[in-house]
């Protein structure tokens, strides 16, 4: 029913815009990663693999990447551990309060990322709320200094930020489970525990995969929480990229690392899409 002109008019402008401001920049990032920088800090447009060689040879980059993945993995696990029971409760037990509780999950998402990271900084610091509280009730005598400026602080903050991201897709998946399946399982004599593990959980896996992907990918690329709360031991891979684009001034090497991150992210999205398809029942 829609004419060719109509299709052309709705397709062409977004296509051109997205090409100019997403596709071309990614391609530029790809190009940069093969260029090099001279000691006098000009960028040489000569094609070589030096940046990639450096990434392979120097262990700092690998170690930081692995540490970032380990931090992201912990954030993912904790977000799922906090988020799944919450989504389950919302979907099966909340009754008439469902809408209200759903909004309560969403509201923290609307509180700015920066504000939440900052709030944790004021809680965890050596003069912070938690330490002064512990001393006030005489549980500790001296401030616990491992709370702030540590990977722990980064994992805690990112878990706080990404738990709602994990809840939403899991909740959506749970809501899509036909209730008569649950009833059938119960009528056929399964205990609630069996019903959960044999019916509900398998059917919610697509939501779990989506939530886990969100939490892992977004925390893997984070650089603000580590800068604010991580200290030297909490440095993540994006922090190295930031310094390469800033004071260290080596855009080509920074571009190579960014491209590596982009490839990791896109492959994860590909895998998670496959997993979601495999586990979805409809």
């Amino acid at each position, binding site marked *: *029913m*829609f004419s060719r*002109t*109509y*299709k052309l*008019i*709705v*397709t062409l*402008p*977004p*296509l051109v*815009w997205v090409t100019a*401001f*997403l*596709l071309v*920049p990614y391609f*530029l*990032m790809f190009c940069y990663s093969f260029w090099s920088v001279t000691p006098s800090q000009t960028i040489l447009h000569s094609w070589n693999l030096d940046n990639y060689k450096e990434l392979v040879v120097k262990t700092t980059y690998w170690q930081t990447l692995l540490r970032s993945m380990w931090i992201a993995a912990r954030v993912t696990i904790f977000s799922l551990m906090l988020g799944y029971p919450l989504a389950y*409760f919302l979907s*099966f*037990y909340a009754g008439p309060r469902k809408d209200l509780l759903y*909004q*309560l*999950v*969403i*509201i*923290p998402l*609307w*509180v*700015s*990322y*920066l*504000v*939440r990271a*900052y*709030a944790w*900084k*004021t809680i965890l610091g050596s*003069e912070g709320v938690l330490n*002064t509280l512990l001393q*006030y009730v005489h549980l500790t005598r001296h401030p616990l200094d491992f709370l702030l400026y540590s990977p722990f602080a980064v994992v805690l903050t990112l878990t*706080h930020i990404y738990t*709602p991201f994990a809840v939403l897709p899991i909740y959506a998946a749970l809501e899509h489970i036909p209730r008569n399946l*649950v*009833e059938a399982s119960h009528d056929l004599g399964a205990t*609630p*525990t069996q019903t959960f593990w044999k019916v509900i959980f398998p059917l919610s896996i697509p939501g779990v995969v989506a939530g886990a992907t969100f939490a892992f*990918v*977004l925390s*893997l*690329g*984070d*650089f603000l929480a580590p800068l604010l709360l991580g200290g030297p031991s909490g440095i993540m891979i994006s922090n190295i990229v930031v310094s390469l*684009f800033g004071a260290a001034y080596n855009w080509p090497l920074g*571009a190579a690392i*960014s491209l590596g*991150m*982009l490839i990791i*992210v*896109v492959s994860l999205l590909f895998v998670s899409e496959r997993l979601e398809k495999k586990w979805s029942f409809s």
Partner: protein
Amino acid sequence: MEFLVSPSSSSGIVPSSRWLLFYVAAVFSFLYLPIAVLIVYSFNGEGVGGFPPRHLTLDWYRLLFTDGAIWDSFLNSLQVAFAAMAISLIFGIPAALALDRAKFPGKALFRRLVLLPLILPGIITGLSLLMLFNMTGVRLSLMTIVLGHGTALISVATTEVFAGLQKLDRAQEEASLDLGANYWQTFWRITVPNLKLPIIGAALLIFTLSMDEIAVSFFLIGRDNTLPLEIWGRLRRGITPEINAVSTIIFVFSLATIVLWYRLNARAEGMAEIAAEMMNDDKSV
């Protein structure tokens, strides 16, 4: 569903649902504790730490209102958010229509590309655009941040509007076209009014996301700061409850937006229910 919570069903379920309730309450406190602390300490005369809070005061709010740099950055953020909203909607709505209605080579790739910034860490979007502006000699300013936010948030407009289109009954558009209206008239008189809620929802979401955005802005910033970057700069220098005060105000604004959106949505759902009931009545008659 009811049988899962009723005590008569199975002896094992009641304690476990009680534990679940306890666990859920704990998760909610984890989610809200930092926000509560933030708000409480915005009224604390003694600074951001220290338990218990002492000397409740409004001084930090007073300080905030006379703080020129904060106000300037707030106005900058407001401009950026409105401009980004315009770009995202102008390109995001047609993109949703294209995905819903057109067939063209590379459509799957196009869809993935549009949606990618939604899940991509902001640093990659920010840096790739920085390289583009650097290569083309564009000087960094609020304009480059607008382009960054606008482009990244097309994904939000497209997902919301596309979801709306999936539910849309095409018969109305067909009728409009059959009765002699052209595509332009049909778009403004039929398609847009039917997509009012997804579009408003997308606009509100884009607006708040842009107001809060920091990872992309971090790389595209020129001389003028946005509000999150102004706050970021101060955090690096040392912290005062003034930051709690501005954060509290941002929180209240976001909350007001979400309540507004929820009410619009609830009203629409109410209308949909009424419509559905009327249709049922027709059938029974």
